[in-house]
């Protein structure tokens, strides 16, 4: 039993209703159950309105379920948030333009009351991890979208949370930066061993990155397929391998069967 991986996220029969009882009531999520092992890379994919971002926010306790329970690292999601168990990255980098790259990465550490020296040391380490050492003193406006996302990832990891929640972080990037960032993210994942929950609407992205792809459907948001992806070590050639395309087809079929039934 000791060999079984610990459970990082446990979602049990969760539903989420926005504006309950009012004219604009929305059933965002219904009967969602999901367990994510520690150290796993899991993607949530589905059409817009399927509640994938809402599900991610429930894990982060940025919003709360109407029914059911969310546990993170065997604590309530709220407690996990207060314990800073997770880091978060969004589609827009959310960097503060009045802070340099280093100061942006130091922000969570500053909020936690770290000393200046300790903060600086960790920021240097994080810049190395995302390969932006020479941009330490730049301001966000001087960087490309991909570089800003790397800073945002460095910031999310700066306080070494065990869990990384990512909401379409590469959604605004061009195709080439996007593939580059995917490779970088996998490298970071391998080096740090974090659990990563990744929301995306790109099928190849989900398949390339994850060990598991959770397919969701809208109105109300439900999990309709849980697809294991075993492509071994991801290298450049992975994107051209037949097994890669087979998985893409499998996910696409799962998404389409949803449209049909809806």
């Amino acid at each position, binding site marked *: 039993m000791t060999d079984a991986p610990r459970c990082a996220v446990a979602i049990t029969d969760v539903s989420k209703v926005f504006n309950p009882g009012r004219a604009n009531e929305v059933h965002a999520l219904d009967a969602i159950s999901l367990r994510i092992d520690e150290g796993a890379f899991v993607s949530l994919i589905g059409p817009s309105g399927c509640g994938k971002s809402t599900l991610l926010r429930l894990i982060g306790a940025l919003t709360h379920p109407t029914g059911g329970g969310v546990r993170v690292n065997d604590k309530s999601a709220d407690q996990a948030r207060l314990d800073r168990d997770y880091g*978060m990255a*969004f*589609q*827009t980098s959310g960097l*503060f333009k009045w802070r340099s790259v280093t100061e942006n990465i130091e*922000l969570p550490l500053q909020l*936690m009351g770290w000393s200046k020296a300790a903060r600086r040391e960790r920021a240097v380490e994080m810049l190395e991890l995302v390969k932006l050492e020479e941009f330490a003193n730049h301001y966000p406006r001087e960087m490309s979208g991909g570089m800003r996302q790397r800073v945002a990832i460095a910031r999310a990891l700066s306080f070494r949370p065990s869990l990384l929640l990512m909401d379409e972080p590469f959604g605004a990037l061009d195709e080439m930066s996007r593939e580059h960032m995917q490779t970088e993210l996998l490298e970071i994942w391998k080096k740090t061993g974090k659990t990563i929950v990744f929301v995306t609407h790109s099928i190849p992205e989900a398949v390339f990155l994850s060990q598991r792809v959770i397919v969701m459907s809208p109105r109300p948001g439900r999990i309709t397929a849980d697809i294991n992806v075993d492509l071994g070590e991801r290298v450049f050639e992975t994107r051209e391998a037949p097994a890669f395309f087979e998985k893409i087809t499998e996910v696409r079929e799962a998404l389409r069967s949803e449209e049909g039934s809806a």
Partner: protein
Amino acid sequence: MIAKALHGFGPAGVVGAGSLAFWELSLLLIRPDGFVLPPPSAILVALFENFDEIWVATRSTGYIVITGLIGGVVLGVAWALLISRFRLANETLTPLAISLNAIPIIALAPIFNAWFGLLSPVSNQAIVVILVFFPVFINTTKGLTDVGATELELMRSYAASSWQIARTVRIPNALPYFFTSLKIASSLAVIGAIVAEYFGGRQDALGPFIVQNAGLTRYTEAWAAVLAGSAMGILLYLLSGVLERVSMPWRPASETMGSWDP
């Protein structure tokens, strides 16, 4: 550095000198007596001939302007901080601020004179404070509350306290808004002070100087005092611009449009 500064002066200098030349020459052609509108050269001569008296008046008005400006800015910023922090304060103080602004403030001058004494500077200061308050309050409030959802979610994911959010996000975000309002307020303060002085307050100030000289048909002298008031307004505007640059070093020059930046 000096060459760069002079380069910035170039176009403005040409336009300024051109307008003055046009003013001077067209008067020579249309109304050589220069009775109602004197030529710029005559105004400059009057300024130097009455320099001592105008200098004393400018200092006297300057005192009202500076103290009123500081008072109005402190009040406006404090009010904005309060209402961005507490919903109850927003619901009660915002309508109060708006009704305060709806009063024709200059019309209060004679009433304030009755309250504070006809020759007391306090009534003039009060007018300037109320005039300055509103633009500072409105803009600063906008800056404090105009923070993106991503940024706020990010801060919540760090379990940041509302004071931490204010200090690290809201206040830096409000700085550009605040400085825009400061530029508006600095001109308003000069206008408010001089008009208030028409009704009372210290008699050695620019307002009484203009009223008395215009009453004696000494229009050139009145214009010289107007010139001194304009110089004060320009100086305060430039000072606001310098403060803006110093407190927001992260901003590129293109974002500080409207601040005069040689």
